[in-house]
């Protein structure tokens, strides 16, 4: 799985996984998130626009990332989930746990418009 990283602002990192985040590739995402948390108060935005399939292992990787960030005063947002990912987040009630944004810009600016 290819994962792109962008740093639009200080303390903000955009993580863009591509393709499937499933039992086969989720450990890579989990590891990547862990690596990125190298200072306090970070916000990581996982942009799911290019993810066409995410399973429970992928969701676990996101939860794991959120926990790591929270331990250091940071947080993890999700942007642009596709229909399959939206369903998965909703059925697992994780849409109540993550801040989910319809666009990347909103996620970066932590807009008030939460997509629920």
């Amino acid at each position, binding site marked *: 799985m290819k994962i792109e990283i962008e740093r639009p602002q200080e303390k903000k990192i955009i993580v863009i996984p591509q393709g*499937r985040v*499933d*039992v*086969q590739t989720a450990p890579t995402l989990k590891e990547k998130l862990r690596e990125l948390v190298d200072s306090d108060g970070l916000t990581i935005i996982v942009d799911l626009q290019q993810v066409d*399939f995410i*399973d*429970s*292992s992928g*969701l*676990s990787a996101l*939860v*794991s990332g*959120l*926990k790591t960030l929270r331990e250091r005063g940071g947080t993890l947002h999700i942007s642009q989930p596709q*229909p*399959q990912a939206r*369903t*998965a987040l*909703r*059925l*697992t*009630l*994780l849409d*109540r*746990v993550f801040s989910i944004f319809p666009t990347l810009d909103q996620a970066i600016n932590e807009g008030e418009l939460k997509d629920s």
Partner: protein
Amino acid sequence: MDGELSDILAEIQKAWFGLTGGGFACFLDDRIILGFGDRTKLPGKVQDALDQGLALDGFTHRRRKWWVVQSSTEAAERLRIVAWSKADAGEEYRLLLPTWAEAISFGLREENLGKNLTEALVGAWDRLSFFYEFTHIVSQATDLLDLMDAVIALLKKVIFVEDVFIVLREDGELHTLTASERSLPDADLLLSLIEDSEGPLSMRELKASLVHADSGLAAYGDLLVARLTLDGQKNGMMGFIDTHPGRFTSNDIQLLASAADRVCSIIQSIRLRMIWEERQRIERELEVAARIQASLLPDELPEIPGVDIAVYLQPARHVGGDIYAASRTSEGDPIMILADVAGKGMPAAILTSIVHGTFRGHAPFCENPADLLKKIGRYVYQDLERADTFVTAVVMRCLQRNGAFEYASAGHVDALLWRNEDREIEFLPGTGIPLGIDPKYPYENRTVPLHPGDLVLVYSDGVTEAEDPQGKVLGLQGLSDIIYATHPACAEAQIQTLLSGLEIHRQKMPARDDVALLLFRCIHENDATRTVIPFVIDAKFDAVRSVVDLIRSLEGKHLDRQLLDNFALATSEILTNQIRHAFGEGMGRIQGRLVVEEDRLVTDLYDHGVPIPVPLQVNTFDDSEPPERGYGLMLAEGLLDTCEYQRIGGTRNHWRLIKYIRGVDKNENRN
């Protein structure tokens, strides 16, 4: 300079060019007597060697190889030869250069101009042409002894000796070849004398031992012999014989050593070539045999109303001992045979064609399988006995009149019968002993009534005895597991799934035995309204994707992307759960089928792992403390209309996942 000398020098120059694509020049002091006019165009290192009277052996400069050779003869120490060749040639001919240097320097002494010089140079020229012809002969040779004959004839001509011999030890036997075709006395004695010598030995060194051994060889005037070392073994020799004592010079020793080297490499390359050609020939024959055997298979499967048939045959090697054939009985019923000749490869293949021919020849005159099997047993008995082997076979037909399966089996592995109504597997035992044991054995028929959805799988033991890398066989259990999952699918899809199951079981181990599969399935009324896609996967996380892909590939008609994505996700969650819990990520196989019906999607998954702990619970959690795991079953529960688990027969896990297509989607409407 003598006209004859310059002619010969020019000839040498031409010959060197012909052999190496290079050039050749002679210097006497600073004066050039043959070759190019401008010394300053030579590489610096060559000029230095000329100035300082040094030799230069195979120095590479600008993709050329250079030699500077000085005559060792006292009379012409001022004579030097400069030769060069293309970088990839010349090396094998460089031994000619000292000979020529000597010959030319000899010729330059005034008193020797004339006859002697000519002889020396002609000798040198002949040696040159020897190597040339040598190369030519070798490139065309196909038989080792013929080649050696040609080589010694050539040597004899070139060296003006009375006889040349080559002795080779092959499989402990000595083969002696002489140019004169006279026998060589005491070849084994000579071979033992030369055995530990590095270079060639002449009569001077050998005489005492030969006299001591009272050998006939001691009577020769001169003898020169060199050892041949083949494949690291000292297993031959070659040499020259002459009646004149002291006939052989240091040049001859050098020539023999070099010729012996050549002969060794020739023999080795010829042997390799022969082995290779033999393999190629066998390979070609096997390919033809494989085509012939494949052509014996019927072009079409028999058409039996209400029965779906598929067959597969794959020899482990090019050709094999498994066959399948179809014909018709005297009553016009399609009748088939699946047979397995004990053994593999060509011997087994030859016998399959005998069984095949007998089956085809007798089928139209037989009424039923037992009849035909008895005939085959009688006719092939003698051939099998002579070959000291046996054949197991099943002869079978599907009776159109009453929908029964009738068979007679000669010691063949039990066929498998799926009883659709009872959802059970039975085995159909043999009804007699293998063919080739008793020509008069009274084989009997057995008739099994078949009902819609029932299937019979006849196969060869290459299927059940397929081994994984630990040597564990697929076995009847493995075969049954697959059929348990695949049974509602069409015959061809089941055969394909059985094959992928075999491949997964073998884990890349090559097939050691032939594989034959013949499957009959009684058509079921539900077949028309559903599509069944069976599959087998390795119980490994990276195999889950193949099932996800399979489900997603159904997009179209009444199945939209979102429905399939959701169903694929639910199925993948259960598969992941199965792999994690039933096998602990260890070895195993999951058999399954995807069924597409008018109003629903169904996945059935079967495995042989440990039982899944029940009841399966869906997590609830505090939003501020989400758990890291446990979302899989939430997803499956949320996405499916039915997600059932049961333990079957205490050995097998079964999951059934259902999603209704036109029903109310309880989840989409939940919010």
